[in-house]
């Protein structure tokens, strides 16, 4: 039996790991060559990765809502500038940016239960810094605090090896305490004149059918997509989350990569918090806790695995949009408050089950 290496002469047969049929096709010969075939191939290998199927579901729901709204504009005011700009395009971006942060951390195999508490701290920092030094400085400070908080959380998780769930749950109380310590118990608000037109236009501007937050989501989403799916740093995240021992065997440092993922979440929380307070003009520590689980739910709905190694930016964004669009539809359909939670809960579980099922179909 002859064997060759890639550097070999090309005369000998490859290391045949099984008995070969004489007509065995080379892998290289069966690869797509035309652009159309390549596209089809890429689409085929997107199945079960988390983004494709949930996007299809979301488009179907969106289409259903739009048709219902067009048939009955008075009873279901979905396609309406107030709803699109005032509800969807100001809520979805904040949650989606948080979900991208939470999702990237989940891909690396870790959790953070202190997202909500960190939003409160970041919001307080934004408002108080803006009051004394203006909003551009406040934005930078907020992002820096977000990253610092998450690096501290990450350092605790990585150095002590306690499960991140419990470590960051504990830290969640700590950071809430810190924000009350920094701010006092009354809500933080902007001084008159601090919330300038420029700041509002950039961070919460109303442009008819959409708000500036949507532009932020597009920018953050595209940058995150390139980071996660096309940059070698993103590849290392998947490797560490999928099999940390295998990653370490190819010179990847799992601890450093996990810390990077925590820092990335901090960046996202900083941005989302800034957008949040720019719109609400106030921050009361302790009122943002629900964002923690909502962000994680959005990431899971979007195909992130709770055990790490799976997920996509598209999925995280669509997961957030799906949750908030369904909630919006329930409210517009006049479901009483209690039922909104009920249906939302069911929708999240169904979406997660659906994703788990599709994951099994992945090739």
């Amino acid at each position: 039996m002859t064997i060759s290496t890639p550097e070999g002469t090309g005369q000998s047969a490859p290391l045949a790991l099984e008995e070969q049929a004489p007509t065995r096709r080379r892998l290289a010969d069966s690869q797509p060559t035309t652009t159309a075939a390549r596209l089809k191939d890429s689409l085929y290998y997107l199945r079960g990765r988390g983004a494709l199927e949930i996007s299809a579901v979301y488009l179907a729901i969106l289409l259903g809502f739009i048709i219902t709204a067009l048939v009955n504009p008075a009873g279901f005011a979905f396609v309406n500038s107030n709803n699109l700009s005032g509800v969807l395009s100001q809520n979805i971006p904040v949650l989606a940016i948080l979900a991208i942060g939470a999702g990237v951390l989940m891909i690396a195999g870790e959790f953070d239960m202190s997202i909500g508490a960190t939003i409160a701290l970041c919001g307080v920092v934004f408002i108080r810094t803006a009051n004394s030094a203006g909003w551009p400085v406040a934005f930078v400070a907020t992002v820096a605090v977000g990253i610092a908080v998450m690096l501290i959380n990450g350092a605790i998780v990585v150095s002590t090896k306690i499960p991140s769930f419990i470590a960051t749950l504990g830290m969640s109380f700590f950071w809430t305490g810190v924000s009350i310590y920094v701010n006092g118990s009354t809500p933080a608000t902007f001084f008159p004149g601090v919330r300038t037109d420029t700041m509002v236009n950039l961070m919460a501007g109303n442009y008819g059918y959409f708000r500036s937050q949507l532009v932020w989501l597009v920018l953050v989403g595209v940058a995150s997509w390139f980071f996660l799916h096309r940059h070698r740093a993103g590849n290392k995240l998947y490797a560490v989350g999928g099999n940390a021992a295998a990653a370490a065997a190819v010179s990847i440092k799992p601890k450093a990569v996990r810390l990077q993922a925590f820092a990335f979440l901090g960046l996202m929380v900083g941005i989302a918090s800034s957008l949040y307070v720019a719109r609400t003009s106030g921050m009361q520590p302790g009122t943002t806790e629900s964002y923690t689980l909502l962000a994680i739910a959005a990431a899971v709905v979007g195909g992130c695995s709770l055990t790490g190694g799976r997920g996509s930016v598209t999925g995280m964004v669509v997961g957030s949009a799906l949750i908030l669009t369904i909630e919006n539809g329930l409210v517009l359909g006049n479901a009483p408050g209690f039922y909104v939670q009920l249906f939302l809960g069911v929708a999240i579980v169904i979406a997660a089950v659906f994703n788990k099922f599709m994951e099994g179909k992945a090739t």
Partner: protein
Amino acid sequence: MSTLTNEVPTQSAGVGQPLLSLEGITKNYGPNTVLKDVSFEIGKGEVVGLLGDNGAGKSTLVKIMSGVVPMSSGRYLWEGEEVNRVTRPETERRGVETIFQDSALVPTMSITRNIFAGREITNRFGFMKLREMDAITTEILDSVVSIEGIRSAKQLVSSLSGGQAQAVAIARAVHFKRSLLILDEPTSALAVRATEALLNYLVQLKGEGVSSVLVTHNLHHAYKVCDRHIVMNHGRKILDTPREDTSVEELTAAVVEGAEGVKRFRQGKPLA
């Protein structure tokens, strides 16, 4: 002339300076000592069989050689020069590749991303050239290992069979190896013919000046291709012998009964 460890170390079969010398390697995991004062050499272009029963310390030794696990004490000399901190980046730089027992692939990633994990082909900003990586992966799978059923480099490793995944792990190691290929039970997931092909490949590597270490339970496999055999027992090296000075029977005695078994065998007494 083969020797028992307590005597003078054996001359490696390679020519000139050995590629890798390990001197007095000891490894403790907490209170447990899994390797005790292990020394041996791997010559250039030499195929070394590392044998021993379960728990003999073979896998730990492999991890130390490949830089994945640090040793507690001992010296690691590469071409006569001591490497102070043996880390995976250090061994990778020297062209050491290991096929681990558990294949060490990431199931949730594609074949391409697995093969290039940590060694991505990127532009100067660190963005991956995925199409180029896919093409090289396809080329590696075609030219290095040949196994049926893999349809695309984009397939997830979780969708491969055990043998196919092992083939990917072998392909990766073979592609990146430059000086030393370490195989830890590589044939566990392979069919008989595949195993044979892999063993023959090790012999061919010798001709290219690449050394290899074969860790296996299967003494017949080892005896067939290895120039030298090292037998481990309870964390100690008990036998280090060139192929021509030993036999499958002696190796069996060493693996099963340790140093006592070798002595008994050399005195012509049958296995207990």
